[in-house]
């Protein structure tokens, strides 16, 4: 083989192989679920304020997992996972909590932390902590954008003990516990949030399954 032919082979290898790799990458990327973002709705009355509304369900029948609850219809879920909020804004969050609960394995998370005033409004009552033996989930947001600025918000969502039935999507639930709180965003960054109540069902710390899988009990909060 002469040099020019060899160069041709080299070029062809890189192009063909690179093309095949790019295709493989594209396939891998599209096989990896990315959910559409839930945008924070700007307030009509107050400047630099917007509101987000979320729910937590004891299964996946009403969330984003699809009509039949997706692959794991029995896994607990948040209604949305990918949240988008503006920078330097007060975000008012309302979470409808439909799930039952039990004891936290780390009582650290029975406190309301990082919200405006350090409090949350649970079914109309303003509280700064809840009973650690009767928690359904938590909304715990953290992450570090890099420059030492941190955003840490953790709000416990008490267990739902109501009995009045409610239907949402294909799921049948009971009347929810309503938790409201606000926090302030800083500059542009990406944060992760998840639930810190051990509600997955494998043995180590109950953090398997829905807790360890993308798109159930955790998600992203993008500040842009």
């Amino acid at each position, binding site marked *: 083989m002469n040099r020019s032919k060899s160069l041709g082979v080299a070029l062809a290898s890189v192009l063909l192989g690179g093309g095949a790799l790019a295709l493989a990458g594209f396939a891998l990327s599209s096989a990896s679920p990315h959910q559409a973002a839930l945008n924070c709705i700007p307030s009509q009355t107050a400047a630099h304020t917007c509101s987000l509304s979320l729910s937590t369900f004891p299964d996946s029948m009403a969330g984003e997992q699809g009509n039949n609850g997706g692959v794991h219809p029995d896994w607990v879920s948040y209604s949305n996972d990918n949240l988008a909020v503006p920078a330097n804004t007060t975000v008012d969050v309302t979470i409808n909590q439909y799930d039952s609960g039990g004891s936290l*394995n*780390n*009582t*650290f998370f029975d*406190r309301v*932390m*990082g919200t405006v005033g*350090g409090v949350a409004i649970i079914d109309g009552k303003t509280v*700064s*902590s809840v009973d650690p033996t009767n928690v359904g989930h938590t909304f*715990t947001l*953290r*992450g*570090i954008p890099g420059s*030492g600025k*941190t955003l*840490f918000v*953790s709000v416990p969502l008490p267990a739902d003990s109501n009995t009045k039935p409610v239907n949402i999507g294909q799921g049948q639930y009971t009347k929810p516990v309503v938790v409201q709180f606000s926090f302030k965003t800083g500059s542009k960054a990406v*944060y*992760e949030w*998840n639930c*810190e109540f*051990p509600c997955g069902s494998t043995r*180590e*710390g*109950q*953090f398997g399954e829905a*807790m*360890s*899988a*993308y798109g159930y009990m*955790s998600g992203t909060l993008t500040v842009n």
Partner: protein
Amino acid sequence: MTTSNNKKSYRGLFLTWAILTIAGALVGIFGPSRLMPRSMSDNMHLTILTMVVFTVAAAPVAAGVYASALYALRHWAHKGSEVPPSGPAVRENAMFVTTWLIVSTLLTVFLLIWGLGALAVDNSSTGKNPLVVDVTGQQWVWSFSYPGTHVSSPQLYLPDNREVEFRVTSKDVTHGFWIVNMGIQVDANVGVITTIHTTPDKLGLFNIRCEQFCGLNHAFMVTVGHVLTPSQFASWLSSQPQQA
């Protein structure tokens, strides 16, 4: 190759070695300390010093290998498609092997003595009134509590110039508690308490990252800490909500 030629060219070998050694030593002195995070404790000072010393010590060895390889390439490389003639049939050189063994053993002994000494310093505790901090890892949040005070926090606050003893544990899986600016890390294990200690000696902000793979959001299990003056620390402690 005549003897005089040999001597001349071995001078080249020596020069290459010297230049590479100096370059390596310079990289060792200025490279890591530039890249590594701001040092905020006695342990981290020692870590950076060890890094520099080891790099400087390794420089002549690595330079020796590079210089010999380059020298061999320069003088004995045989290009072309015909097989070169046989080289000298040297099978052994007891002097060379022995010298090599002695030098590498001495270097290893040096590394060991330095390492064991540094380890002893690293592990030494003043034992004087250390501040105890309980560190709890849970997927994917660190929490810190101060025994005897009912205070707990998602960020770590430490007083300056006082030894701190961290008692580290985990609620679910193994995490790795690492104070990036203080050169200390230990795993947080379920059902076990592991301890490490350090003495912060610079005021300011520092980073805490999880260095043991802990699942989905491992990359986000990060938080920051603050080294405060003792009086600032006392007022921070008293300002915190008390937890039952």
